[in-house]
């Protein structure tokens, strides 16, 4: 009798774990690693991050090549996009936590009203540069057809991850940490 009860208890626990996993998958439906167009690829098969000259929200010049040697997270987002806005505080925390280790977040805003974007930037006290996006920038990343979309670029300037949709943030952080600690060639 005791054995049956133990087995039943484990079955119920397994069901709980399974339902938890189902919930997690429902919350984070897709992590796509394909791009609609292909930026230049390296011998490793990974795409090379584009070298772009952009102008940030405050009118300052932002050259992606100046971040060479750092791990860079490029987040396409919009203030009007609910899941994007929910991610911003986490990117702020990530920037704060890892910036001294050579990490940089760059936000690319898509179709935001300039005033609303500035208000959002101030309200959330964003601690990383935000660039009003355009077609050239999206194309350089192989096309961005939905928000949020996040690219994780290694110190080797290769795109190691692309996350489409609301993504489990721990996955992104793990990727960043792994790239920060990756041996440099």
């Amino acid at each position, binding site marked *: 009798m*005791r054995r049956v*009860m*133990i087995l*039943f*208890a*484990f079955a*119920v*626990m397994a*069901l*709980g*774990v399974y*339902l*938890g996993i*189902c*919930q997690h998958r*429902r*919350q984070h*439906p*897709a992590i*796509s690693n*394909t*791009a*609609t167009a292909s930026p230049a690829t390296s011998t490793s098969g990974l795409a090379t991050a584009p070298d772009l000259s952009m102008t940030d929200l405050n009118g300052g010049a932002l050259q992606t090549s100046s971040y060479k040697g750092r791990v860079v997270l490029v987040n396409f987002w*919009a203030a*009007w*996009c*609910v*899941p*994007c806005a929910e991610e911003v505080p986490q990117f702020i925390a990530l920037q704060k936590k890892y910036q001294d280790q050579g990490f940089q977040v760059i936000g690319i805003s*898509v*179709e935001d009203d300039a005033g609303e974007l500035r208000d959002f930037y101030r309200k959330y006290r964003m601690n990383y540069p935000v660039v009003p*996006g*355009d*077609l050239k920038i*999206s*194309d350089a990343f192989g*096309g*961005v*057809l*939905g*928000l*949020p*979309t996040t690219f994780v670029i290694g110190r080797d300037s290769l795109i190691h991850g692309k996350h*489409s*949709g*609301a993504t489990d943030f721990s996955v992104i952080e793990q990727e960043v940490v792994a790239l920060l600690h990756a041996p440099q060639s």
Partner: protein
Amino acid sequence: MAAPMKPGSITPRTLILRLLLLSAVIAAVAFASAQATAKPADDVPSASQIQPGDLVQAMKATGAQKPVVLYVGPKAFFLQAHIPGAENIGPVAKPEGMEKLRARAASLPKDGSVVIYCGCCPWDHCPNIRPAFAELKKAGFAKVRVLYLATSFGADWADKGLPVAKGE
């Protein structure tokens, strides 16, 4: 001979029962949580949703059977890639987009098939499809459907190799 139980100690049977109870509680909480975060009671009923593969097939029809496809999301995405033949209305979450939708709807037959889509953001959070659907239903369109894109137009259409056109 087994040692006598100390007062207040837990018997194996009690331990198993408590474990069982705890497991049941964990399972119930996980299940309730999964239900709560599932797709909310949708204001676009499933009968009014169309899957990407089905839309590709529907687009092969000719004449009145072929649906009019209206894109109701941000122009930045439309210019990069859109469903061939789709008309760019713009984001209907904004007043000018809604006005454009109303104007276009006024020139369409109410009994015609209309498909609206966006895919700017995950389905549950799209600010455009629900107001567009509600507007067309209010206007009397009986055969209006919404393209179901779970994550985005990129992930659920373009990346799957379905047909796209670029530009205006």
